[in-house]
């Protein structure tokens, strides 16, 4: 059964998947998602940071301040154990959705 919150889950899945490779700060995270999806997925500030804060509150990711070489403070996000656990069902939901869509388009093309 595909969850109703799957649309919102796309952003969550993208963030969790990218953070699985290692900790990143907000800007790097959005660039990485953009690069890996060849520009298909991009985040505005209004989409990215509220999502990060919400995920941090749910303890899926953890942010920590660090000082860059330039002296500017920046917040680096890393995946938590709970986040890793969340990633598995999200992936399964997506895979299920794509399978269902593929089946649907095959039927309508036939």
């Amino acid at each position: 059964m595909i969850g109703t919150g799957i649309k919102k889950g796309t952003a969550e899945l993208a963030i969790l998947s990218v953070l699985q490779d290692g900790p990143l700060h907000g800007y790097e995270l959005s660039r990485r998602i953009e690069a890996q999806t060849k520009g298909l997925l991009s985040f505005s500030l209004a989409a990215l940071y509220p999502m990060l804060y919400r995920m941090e509150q749910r303890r899926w990711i953890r942010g920590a301040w660090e000082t860059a070489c330039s002296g500017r403070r920046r917040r680096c996000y890393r995946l938590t154990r709970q986040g890793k656990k969340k990633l598995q069902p999200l992936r399964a939901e997506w895979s299920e959705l794509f399978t269902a869509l593929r089946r649907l388009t095959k039927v309508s093309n036939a």
Partner: protein
Amino acid sequence: MHDWAQIVRDRLATLALDDEDAAQVFDELTGHLEQDYRSLLSEGCSEEEAVRRALAGAGDWQVLQRKIESSRKKEPSMPKRVMQFWIPAFVTLLLSMACLALIQIFGPSPWFAPAINGWRFVAPVGLVYIPWVFTLPFIGALGAYLSNRAGGRARAVFSATIFPILPYTVFFIIGLAIAMVLDDHVARNLTIPMFFVGLCAWVIFPGAALLAGGVPAHYFSGRLDTRQIYNG
């Protein structure tokens, strides 16, 4: 060179977060915009174009502000009902029981008093009971204050205030009444006047004493809150 920190502060001037929280958000967004701007410059954009595109990447600032406020709103660690009723209720219950126990331990001990047929063992019920009833307004006031502070409405506040008499109420009104009907062993020596004496002593008087503290506490802490709101 653009002052991105100022740009962010200006655009999110009405961000409704506490100072520390807001400062963290400003720092983070400033860093993001600054990096975006530098990256655009390094890609060959003119300064004007880089600023325009960096700001466009932020999206609608009002939406951003609203979303940040809602996402950073701290979720209460405990449900409202626990804060407004259960904690104050158990505080009043435990304190009232502790006071009764302490008065019994450290108060006057039972003694033998002369009686018609010799000596009689006398328990100083009044000397334990009366001081205990006098402690109850303070306990009730504390319960009402805690519930009020957590945002409890009158019903939650007064329920928490009189919570210590609940066990006695259950005993006298429900338990004893059932026992009188069903089990004559329990109620053989019990007369109706005795039942009402017990009801008054353990339910009505303590309840009134608790409310004597709880009602003013609720009223005054309510007034204090209103004054704080008006003073900003």
